[in-house]
């Protein structure tokens, strides 16, 4: 027997042995809130938001760390469960600055979404807010400890997936903080600015710096392929008003939610003022702006002349390891079919 029979919210299911309750529920379309869960990581069971009631098991159990068992009777949204979750959210929000009006993450914040879902309007716990600690030494992202809910995702991603181990928890207990070793700031740590921690932070504690201000609901996303190295990571470009303002890694691709500093953060060249915007032709020794029509005319009349005077093999072309397959196909087709030579190569032997 490789499956177990169990009851979830009054319905019978047969589920593969060894499956975690959280996964079993999401497979059958039941949405359980999570804050510290990430399928790629070893479950940590630290936020406790995913807790569910199992009849006869006493206290509540975290769905992300509990495996299905024969005969289990699970309630994912019983009154007791909902109350417990509300209490946890209340505690989190009581210790969180309500900066949603200015927070860049508003609209893409799990804490905000869950408070909304569970009807939490304000924190009722009165205690001293966590100590402010702000690290803006990294050129690509900032860390605001006051917004950190200590889910641990960043630390686990940096360790388990990125393998860099640049950050960890300090001062365990009430004063716990995500920090670099010896608190010397990200700039002086082993951090390689991959941004993989930033991509998983469920709140606004780790935030990418953007040259342009935007609200999360104003942006459109487009799935594409990173244009730097041959790994070809899949990613979503976030755009606003015809400008790329951020990049998120794809989780359902071979890069499994990871990117590097170039893919994640190096997109500002796209809108750099140095971009070429007009064709240029050399006149009296200098390159001057011209129309496409003139540029094409200069090129094609030279092509025809050269072909006539010196033959097809007097052309040579370097195609590009940076351009698309379709661009490359057209390039070699132009050389072979239109110009009649196989003098096509690329610089990628380098």
């Amino acid at each position, binding site marked *: 027997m490789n499956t177990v029979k169990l009851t979830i919210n009054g319905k019978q299911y047969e589920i593969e042995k060894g499956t975690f309750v959280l996964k079993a529920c999401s497979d059958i379309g039941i949405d359980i809130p999570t804050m510290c869960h990430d399928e790629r990581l070893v479950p940590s069971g630290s936020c406790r938001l995913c807790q569910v009631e199992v009849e006869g098991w006493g206290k509540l159990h975290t769905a992300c760390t509990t495996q299905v068992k024969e005969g289990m009777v699970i309630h994912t949204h019983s009154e007791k469960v909902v109350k417990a979750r509300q209490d946890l959210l209340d505690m989190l929000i009581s210790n969180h600055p309500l900066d949603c009006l200015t927070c860049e993450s508003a609209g893409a914040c799990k804490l905000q979404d869950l408070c909304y879902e569970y009807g939490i309007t304000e924190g009722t716990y009165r205690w001293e807010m966590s100590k402010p600690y702000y690290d803006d030494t990294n050129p690509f992202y900032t860390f605001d400890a006051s917004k950190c809910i200590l889910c641990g995702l960043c630390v686990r991603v940096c360790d*388990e997936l990125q393998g860099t181990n640049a950050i960890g928890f300090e001062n365990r207990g009430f004063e716990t903080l995500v920090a670099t070793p010896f608190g010397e700031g990200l700039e002086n740590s082993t951090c390689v600015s991959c941004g993989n921690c930033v991509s998983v932070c469920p709140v606004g504690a780790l935030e990418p710096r953007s040259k342009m201000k935007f609200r999360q609901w104003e942006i459109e996303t487009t799935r594409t392929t*990173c244009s730097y190295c041959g790994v070809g990571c899949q990613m979503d470009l976030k755009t606003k008003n*015809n400008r790329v303002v951020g990049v998120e890694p794809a989780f359902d691709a071979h890069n499994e939610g990871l990117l590097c500093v*170039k893919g994640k953060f190096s997109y500002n060249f796209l809108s750099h003022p140095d971009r070429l915007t007009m064709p240029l032709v050399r006149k009296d020794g200098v390159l001057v702006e011209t129309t496409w029509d003139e540029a094409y005319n200069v090129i094609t009349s030279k092509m025809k002349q050269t072909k006539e005077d010196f033959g097809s093999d007097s052309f040579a072309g370097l195609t590009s390891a940076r351009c698309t*397959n379709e661009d490359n196909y057209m390039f070699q087709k132009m050389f072979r079919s239109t110009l009649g030579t196989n003098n096509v190569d690329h610089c990628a032997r380098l």
Partner: protein
Amino acid sequence: MTNSIQEIKGTDAMFIIGSNTSENHPVIGAIMKQAKKAGAKMIVADPRRIEMAEYADVFLQLKPGTNIALLNGLMHVIIEKGLQADSYIDEKTENYEELKRLVKDYTPERVAEICGVDAQDIIDAATIYGEAGKAGIYYTMGITQHTTGTHAVMSISNLALLCGNVGIESAGVNPLRGQNNVQGACDMGGLPADLPGYQKVFKPEVLDKFQDSWGSKLSNKVGLTITEMFKAIEEDQVKFLYIMGENPMVSDPDTNHVRKILDHVDFMVVQDIFLTETAEMADVVLPAAAFAEKDGTFTNTERRIQRVRKAVEAPGEAKADWIILMDIMNRMGDETRYLNPAIIMEEIASLTPSYGGVTYKRLETESLQWPVPDQNHPGTKFLHKTAMARGRGLFMPVEHVESAEITSDEYPLILTTGRILYHYHTMTMTGREDGLNKLAPSSYVEINEASANKLGIENGDRVKIYSRRGELETTALVTDIIEEGVVFMPFHYTEGKANILTNSAIDEIAKIPELKVAAVRVEKA
């Protein structure tokens, strides 16, 4: 790559040679570290103590240009210890006796001497690779950018065959391609002897197929490689040079020589997104759309064909490269109009067997690794499964030879070059990212403390470097990650440009220049 990136997670041992993976292919580097954590063994061979070396079970800090000796040494030990895959060799390979004979002379002691590593480390590395059930080899330019590059690649394949690592999952021979679409540029026929899909221009049946489809007369004469093109320009054979999206003024060896050639050519068109050092020398410069401004596909290092999608408009009047090329072809009398890249892909698929089943429609829901011969084929995760089942692996034993350029009294140090994490290629893109410039602002040379002491150089000093081809000034970074006698420079920067110094001597087979070994002299500026 014969195998896929995700398969790395299932491997028993990784042998990383001549690849600074965590800097040049960072996400693959991360996945390798995950595999290591999960229990796989790791061997790293590189002239510099790169980050991956910190994770390695065995790290071999070899002299630049001695890869083949090391590989032969590993095979020597494997055969000596009887760790080779006997039945695999019997059933699936040819020429084993020849290999056995050749590597016999490569004792760990002799190889240790040639490579400047410890004999015991060679034995340990060979044992790890030989004992692993599934072991993958991963390499990049540290293998290929030598005059003996092609031989080193053969040597790698010998090692993989010896232990039965070709044609199985989580193993294989895996060159990690540098630029994002090198794989695709080659697949699409960006090579002088190859039409799309590596179909040879000199095969009549191939030529007929393309002539029928394109409706034109094609040449069956193999074209010129980049190095040969440069020579032909010097000799006034080539008059018209068209460069799309490349910057040989920074990326190619012996910059002074490249400048002379580009100056000399009768007419040059450059199509790019910025006015690069190369574009500045052109007669016509055409503004191209960047990756986020056009539709298309890239093929990654594991042969995965993936969509590129337009997210923003190109600036000003810049156009997608394929549109520019189509416009020119139309004006030259080829009337074919393509409405969009999906239609170009239809043509590619109809002419290229390995892309036969690729359509934009499929790419919306699937990601395909070639070969994808037809619409119903799911793509190919790892290569040679069926070929190896029929037995076709050929051992190609090769001897170690010295690099083209060796050190002398005048040029006593070996210069090796490479990329760094924070910049990409000739920096046209990354050089315009403030944050990256902050992290990696300018050119430098890594030099070992002992070498620096002898020369009276301290960390941060300005230094002059001379080679037989040129000289430059840069900043010294005194470090222990590199050994005495070897210095390293990233090649990205325009100021203090490493390729002023490098050697354009090429590997006779692959025509790749020896960027990894040049003899130089360093002096305090």
